[in-house]
């Protein structure tokens, strides 16, 4: 899983980064709030971010507030790192949109436990999103395929009728056979689409758009 760190102190950043990497996470380090914001706005941004409270420029709390204001579609779990243990400050942090906080100096076990809690939440949110996406896909697929299958049956069937009466050596036989083959392929495609049971995507053309990977998503 990818984790973003926003920490202006060099040593703290290195230590935290090393610990997270040791635990198997893919770490993106940033030194201030603006940098962190930029990274988190990208398409493949980490879903868990550890933000130092005190940073020059955009501080951790303000960053949380800004991230929540932007209401990203993808779930984002924010952990504030703070030496402030005052209850008021904790409330401020959570109200600003942080999901949790870790008091500095932190012990590794607690850090790991809180990150695991964040992972559970992220996993749950991703599952719900995927289920909703899949539901949307299925609803669209059902409607579209039904609409397509009707005229497809007409075209496919009438070509089949024509071919029944035709000798293979007839000059139109090849053309009609090709039409029939094209229709059969469309028919196989609608069957696959109607058997979609998972939400799997793949890159499309320039790689900037994602489309459903019909083969991977279908149980056919």
């Amino acid at each position: 899983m990818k984790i973003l760190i926003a920490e202006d102190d060099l040593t703290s950043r290195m230590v935290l980064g090393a610990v997270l990497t040791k635990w198997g996470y893919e770490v993106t380090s940033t030194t201030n709030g603006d940098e962190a914001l930029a990274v988190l706005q990208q398409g493949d941004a980490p879903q868990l971010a550890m933000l130092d409270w005190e940073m020059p420029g955009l501080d951790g709390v303000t960053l949380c507030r800004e991230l929540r204001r932007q209401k990203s579609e993808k779930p984002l779990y924010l952990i504030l790192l703070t030496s402030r243990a005052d209850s008021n400050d904790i409330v401020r942090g959570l109200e600003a949109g942080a999901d949790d906080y870790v008091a500095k100096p932190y012990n590794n076990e607690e850090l790991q436990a809180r990150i695991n809690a964040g992972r559970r939440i992220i996993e749950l949110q991703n599952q719900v999103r995927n289920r909703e996406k899949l539901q949307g896909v299925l609803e669209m697929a059902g409607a579209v395929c039904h609409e397509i299958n009707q005229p497809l049956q007409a075209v496919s069937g009438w070509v089949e009728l024509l071919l029944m009466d035709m000798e293979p050596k007839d000059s139109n036989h090849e053309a009609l056979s090709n039409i029939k083959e094209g229709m059969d392929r469309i028919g196989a495609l609608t069957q696959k689409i109607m058997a979609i049971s998972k939400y799997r995507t793949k890159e499309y053309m320039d790689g900037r758009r994602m489309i459903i990977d019909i083969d991977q998503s279908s149980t056919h």
Partner: protein
Amino acid sequence: MKKRILVVDDEKQIRDLYSQAFSKAGYSVTVAESAEEALEIVDRKPFWVLFLDLNLPGMNGAELCREIRNRHPMSIPIAVTGYASLFELTDCRDAGFEDYFTKPASLNDLVQAAEYAFKKLERWRKR
């Protein structure tokens, strides 16, 4: 005397298509564009082999199948549908369908299904 088939589909293109396919194979075909019309027809004279679209206006194909089986338990209704994911095979069997095809169906397959259905009827009548 020719064996008779009833085709029920709300789209004329499909009715004409199946009609031609079954006629070519030697059957006498009657068509209906709704479940209600189909029931009027079978009440006048029974049809033993029927091809029903599931997605009909008014009463749907599954209910039609139940109605027909109630009136003529020996009849063999066969479902042909474009809505494959909404009406699963088990739902069709529950409704009383003998078999189930998804559109686009090969005409050859449908004709073979009709042949098989009539063979079954012959075998049942001989007992």
